[in-house]
């Protein structure tokens, strides 16, 4: 019993120690800036297709459901409010972080895990080049930059999906749709808090991705397990932290 309790705590402790070590090894050089931008491209720009597609359809289906329900109460105009608030406060940051973990997080984990399996990390160490600084730092920072940017893209496309359904398909008045949304969304409380969450989730998703890659067993099963762990751990921890942050922010 105590073993069952100790193991997760030990795993969390190891992950935290890894993050602290990675932060302690951070260095700002021209190479690091360039490499971080390259990783932002790989993790962020290359995730755009899935983010845009999912964002559009989430906006579409969310508006469809709320519009249908609210029409019964004669409050169809509030559909845009529900769409914007749920996106800015919760859905945007949470879904983007989970999609990021599935698209970019797994890729980062597999890449670092394979570098471990093919002794590339050892080779860096043996050349007196710090692998935490060279490999982990740019990917960690890339997630921190990419996720908030992707949340903005996700929210934008989801709102466009809502506009497509409510205005173009259902023929609602666009002025009323946009006006209702603008009147109900507060920049700091709704949008700002959502963006703060996205920064936290970006750090969390990239931290878990690099950690599981770094600690992967150097075998094909080890790398496969690590990529699975990245998705599961990110999804669960994003939802838990989302609840905690929401409780503090409301």
């Amino acid at each position, binding site marked *: 019993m105590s073993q069952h309790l100790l193991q997760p705590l030990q795993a969390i402790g190891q992950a935290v120690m890894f993050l602290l070590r990675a932060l302690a090894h951070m260095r700002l050089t021209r190479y690091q800036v360039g490499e971080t931008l390259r990783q932002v491209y790989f993790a962020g720009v290359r995730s755009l297709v899935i983010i845009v597609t999912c964002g559009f359809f989430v906006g579409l289906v969310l508006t469809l459901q709320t519009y249908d329900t609210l029409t019964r109460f004669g409050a169809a105009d509030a559909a845009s409010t529900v769409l914007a608030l749920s996106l800015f406060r919760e859905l945007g940051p949470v879904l983007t972080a989970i999609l990021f973990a599935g698209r970019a997080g797994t890729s980062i984990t597999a890449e670092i895990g394979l570098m471990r399996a093919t*002794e590339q990390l050892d080779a860096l160490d043996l050349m007196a080049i710090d692998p935490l600084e060279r490999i982990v730092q740019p990917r960690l920072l890339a997630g921190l930059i990419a996720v908030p940017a992707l949340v903005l893209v996700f929210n934008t496309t989801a709102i466009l999906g809502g506009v497509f359904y409510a205005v173009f398909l259902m023929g609602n008045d666009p002025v009323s749709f946009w006006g209702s949304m603008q009147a109900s969304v507060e920049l700091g409380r709704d949008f700002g808090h959502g963006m703060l969450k996205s920064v936290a989730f970006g750090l969390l998703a990239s931290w878990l991705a690099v950690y599981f890659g770094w600690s992967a067993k150097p075998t094909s099963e080890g790398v496969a397990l690590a990529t699975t762990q990245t998705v599961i751990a990110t999804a669960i921890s994003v939802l838990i932290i989302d609840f905690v942050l929401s409780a503090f922010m409301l």
Partner: protein
Amino acid sequence: MSAPSPQHPAIRLENVRLSFGDRLVLKDISLNIPAGQVTAIMGPSGCGKTTVLKLITGQLQPDCGRVWVGDVCVNELSGRALKAFRRNIGVLLQNGALFTDLTCFDNVALPLREHSNLPETLLHHLVLLKLETVGLRGAADMYPRNLSGGMNRRVATARAMALDPAIMLYDEPFAGLDPISLGVALRLIREINKARSITSVVVTHDIDQVPKLAHHACLLADGVVVAEGPPDALRDSDNALIRQFMRGGSDGPVSFHYPAESAAMEFLGREVAP
């Protein structure tokens, strides 16, 4: 290969013990690796040859004992001192460990860019010279995935010697090579050692190549140093384990079969009288 005059050891292991969990890999071994020579470390799989290399580079810490490289006790180094120490050691890992997203040129340039402030023109010439040494200047712009395994290891050798180390360590440099690549690798190790007057340590199973390559050989088995000396002397030894290893015999002190209950008991459920 004829041995040069004996010299003081460049690397010394003093009563080194190392275990992984319950498994004792090295049992208080002491080993002297002479300076300026090529030393081959041989032994059956899993006997701790690569572990010895990892102790020399400071990747592993012994449970007890000391590892000396020159006047430096490696197991007392950490952080920046260990980093500075490693700049003086070149290591060829078993599969080369080249970075697949970098060209051969960039792989070799990596340690130079990290540890020197050379102007790009000079660095360019230096990297091409290193690649020329391993015969792959023409492949500078190619990626490791476009090269054969043997060529990858040659690029990795160029990278390992990029900072002109005083000691070169080779982990199984001949494994899986065709005869031509093997001959090239052998010549390369010898020539690098001679031209740069460095100390080379080669972990290998290839007993046929050892006399052509090494001045000094050391045989590890069961976590202890069974024998060391000139390769030809080892080949002529009367020791049963040395003889078995040097002649590649399947019967001898090292058993072909992993320990298990008797085959008769396994298949028939009873022992059979001989």
